[in-house]
């Protein structure tokens, strides 16, 4: 949620509310990248280590034969951690400066503890990803950046550590920054800051370093003190999971909970899920005083005007802004248990204040978090992340995680052991075909959530299509040309349009490359982005169609499901899918846009017809094999089709 978004919808936001002075951050990096040393350094240089702690560390460093005081000992507190000199478990640390208070989730870097990284990241506003300057960008840094992106941590800091080992060389720093930047393009993180540091020597951690005069940015601490943290709260969509019912006597019945998102005022019209019954908020009760507005994070008690049966696990929402209510959805799941995730086995799902039974119906794919590619898989093992279809015994009330972390997250519990074995992030509503593979963006960039616009009322067309068709002297048509690149879609469509034009028909030709330069310039080629590309094109085509045109659309549109979705926008029979096909070899020889050449040279991946699949429809209106018929013959066939 962008800040301006929240502001415009809520003009009365108290400025003090935005004046947050608590930052929760997490640290990540490979083993020996120096996480614990960095935290020790932050504490030491900001004078947050107490004398008795320092004495204890000094004593401990000495007794284990170390030359210098080991600042890492400040954070590694468990016996086993000290024995092995590694961090095993998430630990939480606290320090404060005059500007802000900090809670650090100190997470282990070892591969086998990915679940702890997820645990620490789940509550973080910011993640520091440490990169060892002397080693360059390693897999583990990418992995942690990916997890941070998946968990929607709004701010990343790439701290290029151990700059002292590379002579504080600007070039080394710039190379790592460049490499990370190009990698981060695949991720959904908008704010990334790069800082060259040496945790060991203290360069640019708290004090600005003289060794990096080429660096003009903030020190790490200054950045932590000043980064804006208020933007991640969703203050638009009111969601209030009922946690506990307070009923001291006949005259008071209050619903207690913490506002998950949005805001609420007395007098607001609300609906209680799952009953769907509506009423008005009477009071916002706290022990100090009644509030006239409550914001995300506020622990409050609501009373409502009418007696509606409401209990723990229910959700109070604004009447005209309700979340999805369903017992089937898709989610990314990080598996956290030694026992594999099994399909169709009964687990327990805990979501907001609601606990239900759940089955994993399907594992769509497993994410290879090292290469950021999708893999076919039948199970998820410890520390693995995958996309899963779930079915619950009762509906839950959710929003996609990317819109609302509080109502988009859940945990999976093993009913046999009661242990938390999985963490889930709910995806945006639409489903995606299992066969769609796309390695170019690793599917990380999710489809932009289709925000429902509940207050929009459909306005009938000013001049109905029938009238326009009458004046044009022909029917409106929708011709959807689909097929791999080089099959001949554009060539045939262009020739056809020229013919129709000559006959005096109203036509529009929508071409993939054209819309991607403008309307869809923000979309990539991941399956999710391709789906969105086709969705928008479908909507635009519909506008032209309703205005009486013969609309010709030429899009690779590799997924059946997407084409079906577009088809649904048109009256039955008016959407005609024309599959243009040829031998893949022919397409590669034609290579009109040079894409196959690029793919062969490894410049691009995920090219449909080369290393990504095209899904053939079962029943297209027409199939044209351009290996066997000419452009003119093809045009004739299509003309015959539309004159039927």
């Amino acid at each position, binding site marked *: 949620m962008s800040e301006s978004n929240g502001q415009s919808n809520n003009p009365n936001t108290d400025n003090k509310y935005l004046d947050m002075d608590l930052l929760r951050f997490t640290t990540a990096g490979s083993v020996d990248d120096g996480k614990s040393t960095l935290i020790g350094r932050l504490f030491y240089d900001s004078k947050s280590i107490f004398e008795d702690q320092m004495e204890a560390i000094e004593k401990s460093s000495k007794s284990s034969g170390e030359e210098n005081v080991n600042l890492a000992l400040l954070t590694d507190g*468990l016996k086993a951690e000290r024995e092995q000199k590694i961090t095993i478990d998430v*630990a939480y640390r606290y320090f404060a400066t005059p500007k802000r208070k900090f809670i650090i989730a100190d997470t282990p870097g070892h591969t086998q503890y990915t679940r702890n990284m997820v645990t620490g990241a789940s509550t973080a506003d910011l993640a520091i990803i440490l990169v060892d300057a002397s080693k360059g960008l390693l897999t583990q840094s990418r992995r942690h950046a990916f997890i941070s992106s998946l968990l929607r941590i709004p701010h990343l800091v790439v701290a290029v550590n151990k700059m002292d080992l590379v002579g504080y060389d600007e070039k080394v720093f710039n190379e790592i920054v460049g490499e990370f930047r190009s990698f981060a393009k695949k991720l959904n993180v908008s704010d990334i800051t790069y800082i060259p540091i040496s945790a060991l020597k203290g360069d640019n951690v708290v004090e600005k370093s003289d060794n990096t005069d080429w660096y003009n940015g903030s020190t790490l601490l200054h950045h932590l003190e000043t980064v804006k943290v208020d933007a991640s709260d969703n203050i638009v969509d009111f969601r209030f999971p009922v946690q506990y019912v307070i009923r001291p006597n006949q005259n008071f019945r209050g619903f207690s909970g913490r506002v998950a998102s949005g805001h609420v005022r007395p007098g607001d019209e609300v609906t209680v899920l799952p009953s769907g019954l509506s009423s008005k908020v009477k009071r916002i009760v706290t022990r100090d005083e009644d509030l006239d507005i409550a914001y995300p994070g506020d622990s409050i008690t609501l009373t409502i005007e009418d007696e509606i049966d409401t209990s723990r696990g229910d959700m109070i929402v604004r009447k005209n802004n309700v979340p999805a209510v369903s017992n089937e959805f898709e989610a990314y799941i990080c598996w956290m248990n030694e026992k594999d995730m099994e399909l169709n086995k009964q687990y327990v799902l805990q979501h907001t204040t609601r606990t239900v039974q759940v089955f994993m119906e399907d594992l769509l794919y497993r994410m290879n978090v090292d290469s950021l590619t999708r893999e076919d898989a039948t199970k998820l093992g410890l520390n693995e992340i995958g996309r899963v279809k779930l079915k619950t015994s009762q509906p839950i009330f959710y929003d996609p995680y990317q819109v609302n972390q509080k109502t988009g997250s859940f945990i999976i519990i093993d009913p046999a052991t009661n242990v938390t074995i999985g963490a889930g992030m709910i995806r945006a509503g639409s489903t995606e075909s299992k066969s769609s593979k796309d390695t170019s963006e690793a599917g990380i960039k999710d489809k932009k959530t289709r925000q429902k616009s509940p207050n929009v009322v459909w306005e009938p067309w000013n001049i109905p299509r029938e009238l326009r068709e009458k004046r044009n002297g022909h029917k409106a048509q929708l011709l959807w040309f689909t097929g791999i690149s080089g099959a001949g879609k554009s060539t045939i469509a262009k020739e056809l349009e020229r013919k129709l034009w000559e006959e005096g028909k109203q036509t529009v030709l929508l071409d993939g490359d054209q819309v991607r330069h403008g309307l869809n310039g923000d979309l990539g080629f991941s399956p999710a982005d391709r789906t969105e590309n086709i969705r928008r094109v479908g909507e635009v085509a519909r506008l032209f169609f309703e205005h009486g045109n013969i609309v010709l659309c030429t899009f690779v549109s590799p997924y059946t499901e997407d084409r079906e979705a577009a088809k649904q926008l048109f009256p039955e029979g008016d959407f005609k899918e024309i599959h243009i096909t040829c031998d893949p070899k022919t397409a590669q020889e034609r290579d009109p846009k040079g894409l196959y050449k690029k793919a062969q040279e490894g410049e691009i991946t995920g090219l449909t017809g080369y290393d990504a699949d095209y899904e053939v429809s079962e029943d297209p209106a027409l199939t044209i094999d351009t290996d066997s018929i000419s452009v003119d013959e093809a045009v004739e066939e299509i003309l015959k089709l539309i004159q039927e």
Partner: protein
Amino acid sequence: MSEKRSHSHLKELEDEGIYVMREVAAQFERPVLLFSGGKDSIVMFHLALKAFHPGKVPFPLMHIDTGHNFPETIEFRDKLVEKYGVELIVGSVQKSIDEGKVEEETGPDASRNALQTTTLLDTLKEYQVDAALGGGRRDEEKARAKERFFSHRDVFGQWDPKNQRPELWNLFNGRKNPGENFRVFPLSNWTEMDVWQYIAQEDIDIPELYFAHERKVFNRRGVWLADTDYVNRMEEEELETKTVRFRTIGDATCTGAVLSDASNMEEIIQEVASARQTERGNRHDDKRSETAMEDRKRQGYF
């Protein structure tokens, strides 16, 4: 809009604490609030009042009384119980000793602190407690830094730091098998400074021991211990009258006083802000070994 929003980190910590308390009330059948009469448990009770207003706090207080408490603490405890009409359960270490369940330590450093664990576990069992709310904070000690909000204990009341449930977002999993229980720490994310600032902001009553006063004390290895019947003072340890206050209040045998003139909240906060020693720096029980707290917690300590 309440003035409190200007201290937004305290507001957030308060909201989080209330949320955790309500989760406990909702997820468990027989929770208790462990109450020592110290500032953390007083803040906890204050949060509980807020969490369930205008209803009553839906669980009793439980005090594990070593029998070596400062009289001021007990007096404060009893007044609070009377004022708010809450139920109080007392587990007595003396009783455990009398029943032969534990043996009193001997020697100059003898303390009943370790013995508390047995009494605590027995009392939890006696009342079939399935969740015990504690005032433990992660900033207190390195082993506490690893604690979860909802900390699972096995049927023996033991903590296994290597086998803790991951805690994600604000989803707390309180499911357990019969006989097992949870320790729950709503103040996990608070620091000593937060507690003091909150007490000042909310104008919460605390025992007089926290404010500077004159007291007979003696110095043992750098720690000022109060002269009481419970501490075996060695001959060479001379009694002196000093102006002191306590930063933490526990068993009189192991809680050291600090030399201080801080006689009101403002001065205390000033003092805490400039402190060069941790709060537990003068707790004898932590100095026994490097992992004293971890070891005690593994056995079922607070």
